[in-house]
């Protein structure tokens, strides 16, 4: 077994240190080492977006990033989005639009939507669909998800 590396990173504005094997993905580290299980594994090869997090301002599939690569970087995960007493407007919009059924894809969609709105606060429907095309949802048919993101854009 390869030796574990020491990594120091920032997650949701907190400094976090962990040890990980070189082969462990960021998704594994988040879920298994740091118990941040909001990011989900749907495919482990970059095709479903369920593991989406924002790394140094960029949306990434955490299953395609190695844990060791995050040294010195800063990331946002679904766990850091809400304030203690209030949900983020995207989260509210998902609830109000009933934009989730089973909910397994939801953290990934919300992080993708956050990255979109950070980049483009007033997207068109087509821009929303284009941006979210890396996230799979098998339950909703996407209709209510797209509406939720458009609503959230209006609210922010």
């Amino acid at each position, binding site marked *: 077994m390869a030796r574990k590396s020491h990594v120091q990173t920032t997650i949701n504005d907190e400094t976090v240190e962990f040890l990980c094997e070189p082969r462990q993905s960021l998704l594994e580290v988040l879920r298994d080492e740091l118990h941040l299980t909001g990011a989900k594994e749907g495919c482990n090869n970059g095709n479903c977006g369920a593991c989406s997090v924002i790394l140094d301002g960029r949306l990434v599939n955490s299953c395609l990033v190695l844990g060791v690569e995050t040294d010195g970087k800063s990331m946002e995960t679904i766990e850091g989005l809400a304030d203690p007493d209030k949900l983020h407007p995207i*989260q509210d919009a998902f*609830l109000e639009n*009933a934009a989730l059924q*089973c*909910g397994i894809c939801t*953290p990934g969609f919300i992080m993708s939507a956050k990255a979109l709105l950070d980049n483009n606060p007033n997207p068109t429907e087509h821009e929303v669909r284009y941006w*979210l095309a890396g996230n799979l949802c098998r339950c909703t*048919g*996407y209709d209510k998800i797209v509406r939720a993101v458009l609503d959230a854009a209006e609210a922010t």
Partner: protein
Amino acid sequence: MSEKKEYKVIGTRPIRHDGVDKVTGRAIYGADFQITGLLHGRVLRSPHAHARIVSIDTSHAEAYPGVKGVVTAQDLPAAEDKMADLGEGAVNLKYLCDNILASDKVLYKGHAIAAVAATSPHIAEEACELIDVEYELLPPVLEVREAMEPDAPILHENLTTSSLGDEDDKPTNIASHLQHKKGDIEKGFDEADVVIERGFVTGTVHQGYIEPHNATAHYNQDGQLTVWCSTQGAFTVREQLAEILQYPVSKIKVVPLEIGGGFGGKINVYIKPVAALLAKKTGKPVKVLMNRADVFEGTGPTPASYITIKMGAKKDGKITAAQTSLAFEAGAYPGSPVGAGAMCVFAPYNIENVLIDGYDVVVNKPKSAPYRAPGATNAAFGTETVVDELAEELNIDPLELRLMNGAKEGDRRPDGPVYPRIGFIETLEAAKEHPHYTSANGKKYHGRGIASGFWFNIGLESSVTINVNPDGTINLVEGSTDIGGTRASIAMQAAEVLGIPAESVNPTVVDTNSIGYTAVTGGSRTTYATGYAAYEAAQDVVKQMKARAAKLWEVDEDNVQFADGEFSSINGKEEQMSFRDLSGKLSQTGGPVVGRATMDPAGAGGAFATHVVDVEVDVETGKVEILRYTATQDAGKAIHPSYVEGQIQGGVVQGIGWALNEEYIYNAEGEMTNASFLDYRMPTCLDLPMIDAVIVEVPNPGHPYGVRGVGEVPIVPPPAAIANAIYDAIGIRMTELPMSPDRLLKAMGKI
């Protein structure tokens, strides 16, 4: 139809009760579960589609550092070749066990053979590669028509065709034959002026839930087995574990965690018994997770099928005869949904003369599992295409032709039973009046198609208990795992009875030790049957609280009535008290109130849908673009309309995927060559327009609020509707699914 009932809660759109946990990432799904001392399991799967297992040597894997235990089929109790009744239908126990871990033969690539528990998932995976399996390769058979040939390779040497009629004792891949017959089929075709006959092929598709299967199991020193997992039915898991492990149900507790999609694919168990065997062997809790390739190769797809449809009609549009042969691939073990397909194939129409034959056929593919209205989509692709063609030949609008022949209350279904009140005609009328159907359609390479569908829905057992809190809220305990917002739709039915807001109900889904038996979340039954149980449990609360009010007011119980959330006394004393205020007085009037109900309702009430779709065909590339989609559906009564719309939209999009892209692609060796989400391409939001879901409400007489299940029927019409739209656009009838660009180019003669 006059008299619309007024409801306070039903028909509104409250925020779902589990919503905040799910948008903040805090909800615990199966794979998120943690427990101290956890080991990680990994399953070794067959690289071959058909082979005899000569030997398995696990010694190298066992010696690998970090490995704590290895199991094979030897660790399963020897299974008898007998039928076990699992509540969800009868299953051959040997087949059930062999699909968990193969004993003598592997029957598909991906078939589980052995499993390792180790201190990390990586070690378990490495150790799997150290297991030596010697195979004797056998030729695979991968297609239903080939498997039915007399000289086809045989999967099960002792399998003979079972049918209600005469048995045959020759080994075969045809596991069963069923038939429905009504009227005189010859006479029916003789009467027809137009007869259309076509053959249809549908591909193997997967349910495609985003969350892979998972299980964590632990045996306590006292023999208590606990399994934490995501499943559509905790009690079904308990029953299957009891049969497979030959272990008493009283010693098994199944804890259902949040589930990331199922669509029928999370009813059968796969790795749950394996996790239990590993836990037993190691004495530690063991978590087993599938990866995406495991899910595609090792769990139930829905069957490919070959279907012939022949229908005849008179000049005036009356359909006089319908005949079909449905051959479904069961996968490696018997049990395709051909029975359901046979029930649904002509169900939307009132036809006097019908002959339906169904065949359940084993092939070297994973054992098929239910997928949303199982069997009905395959069948409707055939029927609804032929109905479209009849309409064209007769020069009648396809929607009118359906209206002329559509089944109504009192008509006899092709397989015999008489329909109670159903809403098929209403879905057709809603489609006919919809601005989509009345809008212009006529641009070059644009086409419009319509199709309808039926699903019968089921009832089955549900249990609910309600604890009344002193502040006038209730805790509602149920056993139906919540895949799509059913905590809300069940809670709302109790709230309606008690006259309290939906937010005053705390619904909780509990484990198998904590509630009465509850069947799976499937068959579109949850909002119907568990909702019915919630209604009855709430009525039980009302009854008990009336007695408390009578005590307080010193009146006779019969003199207390309850309406709109208020108890009041009639006859004599003028007393009134809200549900909330009386809830605060329970401790002074005899202690807690717990309402309970168990149900096994008949009368689930069938669901019908009619869909309209506009497409554009790119004649250069063969790609079909969905331009506009409208789905009308009879929901009986929509408890939470947003989630009904969501079910419709989700089902439609799964149907679009099935129609246009999705299929298992096999090579000649029987290996699936596209076992990833990259190559098995499900629709993304960029492939789609908004989906207009139109809810029609024809109350189901079999439910106090008129609910019909809504989850399944929306997947039924899309492939046929899209095929009909493609025909309208380019004049070519597509009879094979998926209608992918290469098939379209071939059909257009471009490649």
